[in-house]
């Protein structure tokens, strides 16, 4: 954990020194983001193709409700889907609402009793974190597009519902920071979760905290020049990167923010963050429970050695005849 924290702090130091002291604006404003995007795209495609290249030999959904069987028994359409529509529904519930996490119960033995208590905190924390992250990503399209699409502006208005201060206080960033802090605290203070955690589990948390903090500071405290930032960002997207003159006009913290984001997306494909794509491919969730209705084909279904009836009867024929059981060969 310490190592992960140090890594993020070191990164901060490097960017600060690089931009503010040595004036390496081009490196952190252009090279790093481009390299990160390339690594991200390459890594993501490679990983997903890698998963997809392994077949799904068996139909192994985890069924979480009543099966489809007799006509008068209502089947659980989404928790145990037997149709494609049902599967799509199950996946949407999983991806948008974290259906499985919602089931969470806390179970422990207390005073000679197994106690089960519902525990929605993880679900709430995870949901808040992921949704706010998405809102923030969409909000940032404002810097990357011209003209800004209507849904981006709309979202920002909703996000700025609490009209506090100027520039308008956007809830999503603060909620995300809170949620990510909760996820971190959980890892830190629950002995069990700390026991299973790897450095690789803390690193993205710290990085995201860094992104959120630098972003909030840029908006509310440093008040970097939004027009400059937008010009730089548009330059990156349109493959006409800004010159060093323009880059130099942006605050150094902006480069910290940008580099943190770059490191996060470059790191993404090699890490557990790939769960975002992986959940869609999970065979226990994305298959219909219809294995008795439709034959699922295994591409590598090789022949195996079996003990045939003939071999069986050869061994037991006399005993079978004595017992009056029918045999094939007398």
């Amino acid at each position, binding site marked *: 954990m310490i190592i992960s924290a140090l890594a993020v702090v070191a990164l901060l130091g490097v960017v600060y020194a690089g931009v503010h002291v040595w004036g390496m604006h081009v490196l952190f404003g252009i090279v790093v983001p481009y390299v990160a995007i390339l690594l991200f795209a390459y890594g993501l495609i490679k990983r997903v193709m890698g998963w997809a290249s392994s077949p799904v030999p068996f139909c192994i959904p985890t069924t979480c409700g009543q099966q489809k069987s007799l006509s008068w028994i209502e089947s659980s359409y989404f928790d145990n889907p037997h149709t494609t529509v049902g599967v799509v529904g199950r996946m949407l519930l999983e991806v948008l609402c974290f259906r499985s996490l919602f089931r969470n119960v806390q179970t422990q*033995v207390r005073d000679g009793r197994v106690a089960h208590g519902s525990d929605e905190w993880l679900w709430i924390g995870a949901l808040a974190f992921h949704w706010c992250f998405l809102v923030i990503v969409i909000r940032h399209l404002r810097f990357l597009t011209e003209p800004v699409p209507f849904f981006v502006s709309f979202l920002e208005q909703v996000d700025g519902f609490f009209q506090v201060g100027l520039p308008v206080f956007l809830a999503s960033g603060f909620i995300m920071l809170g949620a990510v802090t909760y996820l971190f605290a959980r890892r830190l203070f629950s002995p069990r979760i700390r026991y299973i955690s790897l450095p690789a589990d803390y690193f993205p948390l710290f990085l995201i905290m860094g992104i959120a903090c630098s972003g909030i500071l840029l908006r509310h405290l440093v008040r970097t020049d939004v027009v400059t930032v937008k010009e730089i960002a548009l330059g990156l997207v349109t493959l006409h990167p800004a010159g060093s003159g323009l880059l130099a006009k942006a605050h150094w913290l902006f480069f910290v923010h940008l580099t943190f984001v770059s490191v996060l997306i470059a790191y993404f494909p090699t890490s557990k963050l790939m769960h975002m794509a992986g959940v869609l491919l999970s065979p226990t969730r994305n298959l219909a429970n219809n294995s008795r209705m439709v034959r699922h084909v295994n591409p590598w279904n090789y022949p195996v050695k079996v003990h045939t*009836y003939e071999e069986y009867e050869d061994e037991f024929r006399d005993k079978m005849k004595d017992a009056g059981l029918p045999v094939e060969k007398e």
Partner: protein
Amino acid sequence: MAEQARFDQMGYYDPEKLVRVDTTLPSTGWMDTPVAIRPGTYIYPVKPKHLEYLGMPFARQWAPADPDWKLPPNWKEIILDGIRERLDRFRSFKLFMDICVRCGACADKCHFFIGGGDPKNMPVLRAELIRSIYRRDFTVAGKLLGRMAGARELTPEVVKEWFYYFFQCTECRRCSVFCPYGIDTAEITMIGRELLNLLGIGINWILEPVANCYRTGNHLGIQPHGLKDTLEFFAEDIETVTGVKVNVPINKKGADILFVTPSGDFLADPGTFTCMGYLMLFHELGLNYTWSTYASEGGNFGLFTSHETMKRLNAKIYAEAKRLGVKWIMGGECGHMWRVLHQYMDTMNGPADFLEVPVSPITGTRFEHARSTKMIHIVEFTADLIKHGKLKLDPSKNDRIKVTFHDSCNPARAMGILEEPRYVIKSVCNHFHEMPANTIREKTFCCGGGAGLGTDENMEMRLRGGLPRGNAVKHVRDAFGVNHLAAMCAIDRATLAPVCEFWAPGVRVTGIHELVANALIMKGQTERTLNLRQEPLGEEAGETAHE
């Protein structure tokens, strides 16, 4: 009795002590905490003769307590090649190696962790046991960053750890219900056991039944004439109780239906009473069906060995259906058997295009949901009969019984047969009470002895693993006076009996068709005064019977 008892007997353990689960975590990280293999929590290794009979590699004498497990010289290569091959074959495995975020949502869902407290029995850590090896040898991050990325070297110690913890997972899939990505530790355990088998490392409680089943057609090694005797013996008992002489068709060509059930029902009480229930029901309906001696096992301990072994054993069912020329197949009350039949059989040994879509000859119901495998569950069949009013039932015959229902892991989480058994039980019993919501249906708790772990030398782990279930049973016993637990699984019927006796004394285990048969009014029966266990039937609520 406690002074005489050994670690493989229930009397050796004290519920008061066992319930005080030690949840303190080791002071060392899990990678630095070596596995401690102690009696009562592991299962004896496979005898060489069984491996030899099955043609499986590296048969040898070894013991888990030995420092040297006599691994083959190129063991490391075998494991790494084995992992590589399985990554290419199973998307599930590849994906589950990559996407776990260690959120811990699965941690307290495993009955072995709840009742045992060993952190490596948290599903997430169980999976990390392989994942750490995968990272080091198959991912860039693991190669570069080593332990920082959660990677570690494959050593003989790791193999020992795998043996201990992959045989402390009952492949119940409960963790998979709660994981946000559906990571199924049962799937990882299955692969882990496959890898161990490549080194000749397996347990006798699984591989002896596998070898038996391969040879004689069933796990118990009952030979054809023995099976005939057993079923005829049941028929005699039935006659004693009902006055009706039921017929016992075996290996009958031209039957319409092949019936396959777990062989545990032939041998061990209380499964035997359920088996009598099948015989009575089929006789009463005048069903043109047959038992088979060649396919005399519905269960499949191959599932607990490797995908290949599962296929080798399962092949007999379709082969026998073809040989006998039946129209379709019906399966008895079993748990893991139904995982195989429902999720693997058709893929492995199908297509069953020589069979017909199952149709009930009594009600005419076409079981469309089994139109490809051509195999239905007997509880689906019976529920349909009852719904159509085709059975004469007197539920008051079960009035001494206050029953609760234990969803077996596989039928619940690898199939979803939840309502049918409840409907049948409620139709034949007047007193039915559910256990708490967090312990039934898809959230059901394992008996603690599934996936081939239900042997006596594993008694401590079984009782610990059975704690969450046992505690829920105790709850309904105290709240509603429940005295019977119904389960449609042969392993449950064997393993829940001690679990209930230990954690919820006074509750007995029964199968569903035992209850059906007790309530069934048969044509030409004499006045029924005894149940199938030959105990008095009827209304007066006697005190809880003890075995």
